[in-house]
């Protein structure tokens, strides 16, 4: 096969070209003509998946800053799955809400390019640019329904706080550059390995600023304030996209920066991340119980899931690192499917995302109620779903690394969270009151995406070994 120094950028190039094609197709179409722009996007994403599979085990490096190691490729494939499901769920939503079709898909695809860049960058500057590409696209997607004041408010809050956190992150990069004289992660790691904390207290400043930047993007407590508002205000499918894609990319970059460049100082950052993980798990669960809006409830659930991922980062043994990757994939598919159900049940003028709207869903939409139940059980971590395997793997990593406290808090918060997931299930099945809301007919494409994700959730829940091995293999080669 033909090898070149561009190999490592091929996956993101596929998606970027698809985004440009979408924009071009939409710009030059004549009035009234419809373009298969969603299909174009899926073609680009499949190209990214195929090229990632071809690059597996090759450790290609392009321009010295983009590395296609197995870790990056695993996250890239996760992002491809997120992208394809998002596009499939969006196709009825875009038509129904009258969203600008070309712009919507182009922004989704560009955002995925930024995410892939973050996952495979070996340079703080490139991580920052990827982060900004992703964030700016997601800010706009949050507020893409301009007739909805809630969406506009959510986009504005998200944008202001996001810009603020970007400044923190950039400041952290500047400090790191000032200390190490480079932005490459491997060189920073080599520089830091030769230092001790007493040599230079500024390392702690750089570390702290970078930590704040990442903690904001993965909505870890206490940097989670924007999450409920942004998740509630954005269109349901965009919420699904940003709670999975953004989190996966930010976590991949977080893990890479802290487990490679700042590994020599893990004694300093691990206790801080320990506390953040505990606070995130507890707050996400406890506040989530009190929510009456399904999107808001899932926002807090997504905060709690970020906490479980942080447990894997603190544990940082081989099991923990592989568990992060597996959990990211499991969580991405499950959460996206749950938001997909919400998106498919909404109408242009009524979001239908209050908890009481789902009362008696079993009687009016039995298939959707059944699929939603599987998603919620997986989010709660009950067998035989993928959520159970992911949580079990994360907590066993924590126990293996000697973090018994984290594992106990994790299990306790999971048990509490099962309560609020089951509350929705009980509402869907056991409510006798007649349904007050009128649900729209469900599109075939959306249903296909939903069934596909449920198949993945159950298949990985029953036979997780091949993917677990892939995750372990992809982490073993680098850190």
């Amino acid at each position, binding site marked *: 096969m033909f090898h070149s120094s561009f190999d490592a*950028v091929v996956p993101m190039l596929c998606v*970027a070209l698809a985004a440009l094609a979408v*924009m071009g197709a939409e710009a030059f179409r004549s*009035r*009234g003509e419809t373009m298969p722009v969603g299909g174009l996007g899926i073609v680009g994403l499949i190209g990214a998946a195929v090229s990632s599979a071809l690059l597996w085990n090759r450790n290609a490096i*392009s*321009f*010295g*800053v*983009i590395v296609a190691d197995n870790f990056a490729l695993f996250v890239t494939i996760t992002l491809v799955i997120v992208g394809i499901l998002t596009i499939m769920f969006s196709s009825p939503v875009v038509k129904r809400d009258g969203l*600008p079709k070309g*712009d919507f898909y*182009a*922004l989704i695809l*560009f*955002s995925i*390019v*930024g995410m892939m*860049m973050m996952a495979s960058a070996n*340079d703080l*500057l*490139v991580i920052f*640019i*990827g982060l*900004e*590409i992703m964030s*700016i*696209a997601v*800010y*706009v997607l949050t*507020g*893409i329904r*301009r007739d909805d004041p809630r969406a506009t408010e959510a986009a504005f809050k998200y944008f202001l706080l996001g810009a603020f956190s970007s400044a923190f992150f950039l400041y952290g990069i500047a400090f790191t550059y000032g200390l190490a004289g480079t932005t490459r992660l491997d060189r920073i790691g080599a520089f830091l390995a030769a230092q001790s904390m007493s040599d230079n207290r500024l390392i702690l400043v750089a570390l702290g600023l970078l930590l704040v930047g990442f903690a904001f993007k993965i909505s870890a407590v206490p940097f989670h304030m924007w999450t409920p508002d942004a998740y509630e205000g954005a269109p349901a499918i965009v919420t699904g996209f940003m709670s999975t894609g953004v989190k996966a990319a930010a976590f991949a970059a977080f893990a890479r920066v802290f487990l490679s460049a700042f590994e020599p100082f893990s004694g300093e950052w691990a206790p801080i991340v320990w506390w953040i993980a505990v606070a995130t798990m507890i707050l996400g669960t406890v506040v989530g119980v009190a929510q009456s809006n399904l999107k808001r409830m899932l926002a807090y659930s997504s905060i709690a899931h970020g906490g479980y991922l942080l447990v894997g980062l603190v544990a940082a043994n081989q099991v923990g690192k592989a568990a992060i990757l597996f959990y990211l994939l499991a969580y991405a598919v499950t959460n996206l499917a749950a938001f997909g159900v919400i998106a498919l049940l909404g109408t242009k003028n009524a979001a239908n995302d209050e908890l009481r709207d789902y009362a008696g869903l079993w009687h009016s939409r039995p298939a959707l109620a059944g699929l939603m139940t599987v998603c919620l059980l997986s989010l709660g971590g009950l067998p035989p779903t993928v959520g159970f395997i992911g949580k079990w793997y994360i907590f066993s990593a924590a126990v293996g690394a000697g973090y018994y406290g984290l594992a106990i808090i994790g299990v306790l918060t999971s048990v509490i969270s099962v309560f609020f997931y089951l509350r929705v299930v009980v509402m869907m099945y056991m409510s006798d009151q007649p349904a007050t809301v009128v649900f729209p007919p469900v599109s075939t494409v959306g249903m296909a995406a939903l069934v596909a994700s449920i198949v993945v959730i159950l298949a990985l829940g029953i036979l997780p070994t091949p993917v677990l091995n892939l995750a372990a293999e992809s982490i073993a080669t680098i850190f």
Partner: protein
Amino acid sequence: MPETLIFYLLSGLAILTSALVIGQRNPMYSVMLLIASFGALAGLYVTLDAPFVAVAQIIIYAGAIMVLFLFVVMLLNAPHEDGAEWDRAHPLRQPGVGRFGALLALLLVVQLAWALLRTGSVDVPVTGAVDAETISSVRLVGRTLFTDYVFAFEATSILILVAMVGAVVLAHREGDRG
């Protein structure tokens, strides 16, 4: 000799335009004069063998930041010509604001004087072993940008494209396209 002449010319221009900035009634003129002042400063940087700083000064200050200033001025719709009203309502007419400004100006003078006195006592020449060519050469900056940072440079183009698309999506009028 011509360098000295250029120095005095540019310094005079910078001082003159800066003084005019605070003497304008119309904030739009102030902004324009500030751009002229920044331009004169950029010229001074060129005479100091710092072409990169000069270009950055023009791109960042005279370009990006002043565009932002202009937008704010236009959005606030400030350039109204009612002189008497403007004089009465002007923030600088408030005694507290005036005193605060005077204090800041005094601090700046003290700081500058202190810096100048210190420079007199430091006898290590500013240009040490490295000559001006290596510190701030456009060629070196360009070479670094297009070798070590070439991916970041190219990726920035996607970032700008996304920002443009986003701005158009959020700002366009309803019913522009069918």
